């Protein structure tokens, strides 16, 4: 037997054994939904207004990107210069992760891709095994992309940088995975 009850504000709850399904009463819909002539209920005017507001803001994007690149460089230098047993990867990861998410909006999609590659590297490999040279390679690439104002995938330098980085990362990740498998195999035999 399925039990159901109105729990207030038009909300209805149904019980299926140990699972309760709660159908919201639509109070938020009642508060903010308005009839629209736009196809598919997409508010083209609001979206255009938001795009225009972003365009006004975009004059600041180059400076903001510069700040984010400087944060990445500082985080990398702190990581590199710390004694190995005191290295904290979090600030470096967050700096890379932020560029991964924002550089596209700022007009630097290639820097976003490189920073994405760096954040995956930092996320997938234990801090003790992180290859400093490869991290440095990423940071230098982001820096070069920004300082040379490279925004276009058609730029042959950018294409080459991305290609080289991908190859280098795959190599490091595969080597690490192989080492882990061997370690596991060794432990099983001991």
């Amino acid at each position, binding site marked *: 037997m399925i039990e159901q009850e109105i729990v207030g504000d038009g909300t209805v709850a149904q019980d299926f054994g140990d699972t309760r399904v709660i159908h*919201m009463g639509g109070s*938020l819909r009642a508060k903010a939904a308005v009839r629209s002539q736009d196809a598919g209920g997409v508010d083209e005017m609001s979206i255009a207004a938001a795009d225009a507001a972003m365009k006004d*803001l975009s004059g600041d994007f180059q400076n903001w990107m510069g700040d984010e690149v400087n944060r990445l460089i500082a985080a990398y230098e702190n990581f590199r210069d710390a004694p190995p047993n005191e290295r904290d990867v979090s600030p470096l990861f967050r700096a890379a992760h932020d560029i991964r998410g924002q550089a596209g909006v700022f007009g630097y999609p290639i820097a976003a891709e490189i920073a994405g590659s760096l954040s995956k590297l930092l996320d997938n490999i234990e801090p003790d095994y992180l290859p400093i040279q490869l991290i440095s390679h990423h940071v230098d690439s982001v820096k070069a992309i920004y300082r040379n104002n490279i925004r276009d995938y058609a730029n042959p330098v950018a294409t080459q940088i991305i290609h080289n980085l991908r190859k280098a990362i795959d190599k490091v990740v595969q080597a690490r995975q192989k080492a882990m498998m061997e370690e596991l195999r060794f432990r099983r035999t001991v």
Partner: protein
Amino acid sequence: MFRVDCSRLRFLVIDDNGYMRRIIRTLLHGFGTREVFEAEDGAAGLESFATHLPDVVITDWSMPVFDGIELTKMIRQPDTSPNPFVPIIMITGYAERNRVFEARDAGVSEMLVKPISAKGLYARIAKVVLNPRPFIRTEHYFGPDRRHLVKADQYKTRGAASSFLSSATGNA
């Protein structure tokens, strides 16, 4: 057909990156929203959530100390949260499948992968306002139904609640 009048909604934006908060605020104001509150980490976000009772929460995933996943789990506490049903839109650089599942299992309503756009953000807001998913409560989970494509009919087949639900929610 309906659209969302964002001027009637109150938003809370939680992101440790000031530039990202500025971008989201700019988009929301562009949509016509007047009330946008900000917090720079999960702990401050939770406090602001209790104080301002926003209609929609927009949060980043990766934040120091108290991240967006932990924040979502706190908000989705049905017995202690001021509004465990609030829509939570997570804006993140993570696009990996396992990350999407992790966010879903924490109780996130919608995800928006960066880089953010006006169209993408508006679509998520429209989804949580106009077509919210039912909530599920079990011993181990409280949050929006994790099956995104559930239709009202599927609930009907599990009980004779169809007309009752239609009239009560006006939304079947």
